[in-house]
């Protein structure tokens, strides 16, 4: 239950974004499912990776871009939709807000802490995506 509920919330949040980004029907469900599964990966890798969240985000991103590539092949549409929507629970939106909030309060130490943390999360997500998409590209070039 403690794994199921957060994934359900991630699913619902993604579903909301599907409406805003105009993804309809089965695509919306699959994108949101991707978001929920990625969050599950994030939660499950926690104990294995010693609760280092930057690494957890990396594995979630690897899973997610593999999911997006598979779905793009199966449904014959660009992977963009999956990469956008399903990433939303993972991306550090709140991190940027906290970082700029600390900056406005004049709290330099917090600004640097949250800022570096946010950047490293964004970096590990980006590396996760690039690893998979580069591999897929190389494979299709063979």
């Amino acid at each position, binding site marked *: 239950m403690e794994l199921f509920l957060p994934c359900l919330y991630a699913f619902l949040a993604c579903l*909301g974004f599907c409406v805003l*980004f105009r993804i309809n029907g089965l695509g919306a469900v699959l994108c949101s499912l991707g978001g929920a599964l990625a969050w599950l990966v994030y939660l499950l890798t926690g104990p294995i990776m010693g609760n280092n969240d930057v690494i957890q985000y990396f594995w979630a991103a690897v899973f997610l871009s593999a999911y997006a590539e598979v779905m793009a092949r199966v449904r014959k549409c*660009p992977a963009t939709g999956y990469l*956008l929507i399903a990433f939303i629970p993972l*991306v550090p939106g709140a991190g*940027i807000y906290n970082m700029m909030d600390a*900056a406005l309060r004049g709290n330099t130490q917090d600004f640097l802490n949250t800022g570096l943390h946010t950047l490293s999360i964004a*970096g590990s997500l980006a590396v996760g995506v690039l690893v998979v998409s580069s591999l897929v590209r190389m494979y299709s070039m063979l």
Partner: protein
Amino acid sequence: MDYDKLLTLSSDLGYHLLLSGAEIYRVEESVHYLLTAYGVETGEVFVIPNCVIVSLTAPGQKPITRVRRVPGHGTDISRMEALNDLCRRLCACPPDLDRAGEELDGVIREVHRTPMAVELAAYVLLTSAFCLLFGGTARDAFCGGVCGLAVGLVVPFLARLGTNLFFKAMVGGFFCGLLAAGLTDLGVGEHIDLIITGAIMAQAPGLVITNFMRDIMAGDMMSGLVKLAEALLTGAGIALGTGVALSLVSALWGVL
């Protein structure tokens, strides 16, 4: 072949792809494939998040170039998929340029408007889901949903007025902060920080900062830097808005 028409067609395709929220590399590749499909090997395309430049040199003629400036835009995945599909069809068997232009117009003219009520429901759903995901209670989720409703009402309205990115983020953040502080003071909400972080997720530039990293690592430096500036500006706008609202509420609460 009429190279002017080809230039118009390919730059329009790039423009509309970018406008519907496609990635930089996808726009560049699509335009490039289209030019190659029509037999132009000397085509160049350069795309950054707010500009598309296409240039080609026809055999025995001077080079021709077209620049299209791209305004601030949302994301419309279904249109992007339609355009991608069209590009694939055109590249597979290039029809004559007038036909191709008509087909592009046909795709662009198909306007999908989500009903206002559905869009608002989506804002409420996603903000309350984020409040719960961040560890809030059911009452926090309710307050987050109210803030999301306010954002969903105000931000698209401001976007229609052509307001810039920073101001939109600031106003959205202001309403989030105001409602979150008000509802918490009234005893409806329990954790004000969770309500605010959940409620701002509808606007937060998390995707932008992840895409900035992706662009930089993939070698699109210019696009990456533009996106980094956008993410920092939006983040600062939201923080400023909520900060103003919170200090206003605490000042008023002190007086009352």
